[in-house]
Each structure stands twice: as C-alpha cells, then as structure tokens.
C-alpha cells in the first residue's frame, strides 16, 4: 500500500513524472506496433469474411478501436481537466493537453474510416445519423479545448486552467448532445441502419480477436503519444526550473 501511495505522489511531481515515464516510452511504442501488426494481419487475412458485409467489414478493425479511443480520450481529458482545475496539478494539465491532439486525430480517423465504410454499406459517404453527428460534434469539442489553449499560449498556466474549464463543460455537455442527437435522428429518419450492425452479429472468436487486439494496440499507442507529449509539455512549461536544466547537462 505504501508503495502505491508513494508512486502516486511521485507521479504528481513533474521531475519524477518525467524521470519515471521516460522508461516507459520505448516498451509502449514497441507493444503498440507489435499489436497493430498482429491485429491487422489477423483481421485482414485470417478473420473470415462477414456473411452479410463480405470483406468490407474489415474496416471495423481500425474504425471501432479509433471510435472507442476518441471517446475514451475525451473522458481522460475531462477527468484530468477536473483534477487540473480543482487541485491545480501540473501533471494533470500536461496529461490533458497532451491527450487532446491524439484524441482529435482518432476522432478524425473515426469519421474518415466511417465514411469509407458508409459508401459500400449505405451507398453514401456521409449520413447524418446519430453516431456520425455526435462524433463530428466531439471533434468540435477537441478543437475547442486546443483552440482556447493556443489562444492564451503566452501564459501556459492560465491557458491550461481555461482549457480545463472548457473540457469540463464539454464532459457535462457530451451526454446531452449524445441523447439529443439520438432522439433527433430517431424522430426524423426512423432508426437508420446501424454501422455496428455487423458488430452485434459478431460472435465468432476469430472476428472478435483482431478487434480486441487492435483496441489494445490503440490504447498503448495513445499512452505512448500522450506521455511523450506530456513530457515535452512539462519541459516547456518548467523551462526555468533547475530540474529541466539538469536534464540537459547530463546529456
């Protein structure tokens, strides 16, 4: 128990966070790459074609993990936003701002691969269905968090606090958007064909396995990318502290 408490406190201080996570980067990247390669080969070649969607369902192996990550990362941003706003923890600020670019990237990826999947399945690249619409609004939320930060970039602490506030507002707003959009589409179009239609039919382990592997791979990649950016963030915002200059004397 003591060890966990000690670890928790260490992760809260920028110098030890920087030191500890430095050891994690390489293993995380290697794990992410290996899992991606394995998952994609498994998904593209060894998983059987879907009885309804044929080979096109294989887009799922990048689309669904990306969609999961886009929501998961926003959740992380919201939670670290709360921590950053209430307790003013620098590491939480770093985690929040480091998560935003990769989260936005996954959201964009979800939208683009969703479009590529929509064309053969629905016959159109874009359909204003509930999932796609709320994913698009999620992208705006990411842009908002990053936008407010970069607007105040001459004062990083203030920028981070305002960005945290935006992130928290977004976190509260997200379920409202989600349900209003779902309600909106259910009234106007009737339930549209769900893009996950093939997913609910997945009971075969050989189809599920690549999906889970890819979900793990994207999680590891997120951790790598986020920690990398968080470390740079801390270096940048703590430039005047002695621990930063020590880092460079040693090297």
């Amino acid at each position, binding site marked *: 128990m003591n060890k966990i408490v000690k670890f928790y406190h260490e992760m809260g201080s920028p110098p030890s966070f920087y030191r500890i996570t430095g050891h994690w980067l390489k293993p995380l990247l290697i794990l992410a790459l290996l899992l991606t390669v394995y998952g994609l080969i498994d998904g593209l070649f060894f998983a059987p074609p879907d009885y309804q969607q044929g080979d096109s369902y294989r887009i799922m192996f990048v689309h669904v993990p990306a969609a999961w990550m886009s929501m998961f990362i926003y959740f992380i941003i919201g939670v670290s936003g709360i921590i950053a706003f209430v307790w003013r923890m620098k590491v939480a600020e770093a985690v929040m701002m480091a998560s935003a670019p990769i989260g936005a990237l996954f959201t964009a990826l979800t939208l683009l691969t969703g479009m590529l999947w929509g064309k053969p399945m629905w016959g159109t690249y874009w359909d204003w269905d509930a999932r796609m619409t709320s994913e698009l609004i999620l992208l*705006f939320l990411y842009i*908002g968090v990053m936008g*407010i930060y970069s607007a105040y970039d001459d004062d990083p602490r203030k920028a981070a606090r305002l960005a945290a*506030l935006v992130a928290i507002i977004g976190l*509260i707003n997200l379920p409202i958007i989600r349900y*209003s959009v779902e*309600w909106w589409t259910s009234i106007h179009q009737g339930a549209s064909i769900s893009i996950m239609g093939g997913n609910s039919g997945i009971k075969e382990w050989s189809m599920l396995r690549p999906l889970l592997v890819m979900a793990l791979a994207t999680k590891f990649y997120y951790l790598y990318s986020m920690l990398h950016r968080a470390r740079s963030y801390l270096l940048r915002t703590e430039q005047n502290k002695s621990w930063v200059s020590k880092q460079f004397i040693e090297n």
Partner: protein
Amino acid sequence: MRFWILLQRDVLVAWRKKSNIYQPLVFQLLIVTMFPLGLGAGAQTLQKIAPAVVWILALISTLITLENIFKDDYEDGSLALYTLSGMSLPVAVIAKAAAHWLTTGLPVIIFAPVIAVLLHLPASAYGILMLSLLIATPIFSLLGTVGSALIMNLKNGGMLLSVLIMPLLAPVLIFGAGAVLETTLGNTPVGHITLLAGCFVLSLTLAPLAAAAAIKVNLE
C-alpha cells in the same frame, strides 16, 4: 438589489448605443433575403426550410453579439470591481445574461414573425415559433456568457467563441427548430418544448457557475 442596478446599467448602456440593438435585426433581414435569391422564390421550397432558417438566424444573430458581453467591463476594470465589491459573481453573470437577453433576445423574438412571413411559414406554427424562441433565447444568452467569459481578453475571439459555443447550442437547436418543424408537419411539439425547458433550467443553474469560474481565472 445589486442585481437590478447592474441589469439597469447594462440595458441603459446598450440602449444608448442603438446599433447594438438593430444590427442583429438588419443582419437577419440581409441573410433571409439571400435564401430566396439562392434557392428560388418558390413558396413550397421556402416553406420547407422556414422553421430551420428562422431558428438558425435567431441563433446566429445572437451569436454575433456575444463577444462583447464582458469585454468592455473587463477592459475598463469594472469586472474586477464586481468581484471586489463582494457581489456574488454568478449573480452578476445572470444579470449580464438578462441584460443581453433584453437587448438582443427580445428584439429577435419580436422580429421573428417578420422573417417567418418572408419565408412563408405555415400559419399554424407561429405560436410555437414564438414560444420556442421565448424559451431558447435566454439559453443563448446564458450559454453565451460562458463563451464570452472564456474569450473576453482575446483580440480576435469571435471564431473561437463559435467553436466553443456550437456544441453547447446543438441540443437547443435540435429541440427548438424541431418543435417548429413538427408543428408544420401536424405533429405535437410538446416533447420538444419540454426538453427545451429542461435545457433552460440546466443552463440557468450551470452556465453562471461556469462563466464565473472563467472570469475568475481571467482576472487572476
């Protein structure tokens, strides 16, 4: 007591600068002229898009006035004075939002039937149009204070303001424009209006807190 003084002062300031009040209306009129020019003047086509256009115009014309809710008060230091005077900041925010609503939301509501006539909105939908705008324009002002407080000391915050506020307003637009649309289609708008009222209550309770927090950070 202070609430009323602040409200009165803000309305008076806005009233002296008349352009604040008629500019959004002129803007609405300009944009609404473009729709028939672009779409063709067929009453059928216009009727179909009328609920959405009236609603989106009301939304955008309030959006363009949001940027300055706190700007002047921030620049001349009176915002810092409110906090020093011991006035509860969320209450001050509500006063600001109320003043903004009286000077932009209310004119927009009064002007909405004119826009609706130009777009051939079916007669049955006017009541619901007014009702939905009556509930929704205070929401615009309340949520607007949040966005405005976040960008109040930026020079060109307008674009950022719309990015920040669009996700907040999306549900309001869905319920509000939806209510009018359902009425034109002959359905009952009760569900939409109820949810819109829910949005109002939610933004009345949460938006002042969020805006006050943003002001505090900006004044630090």
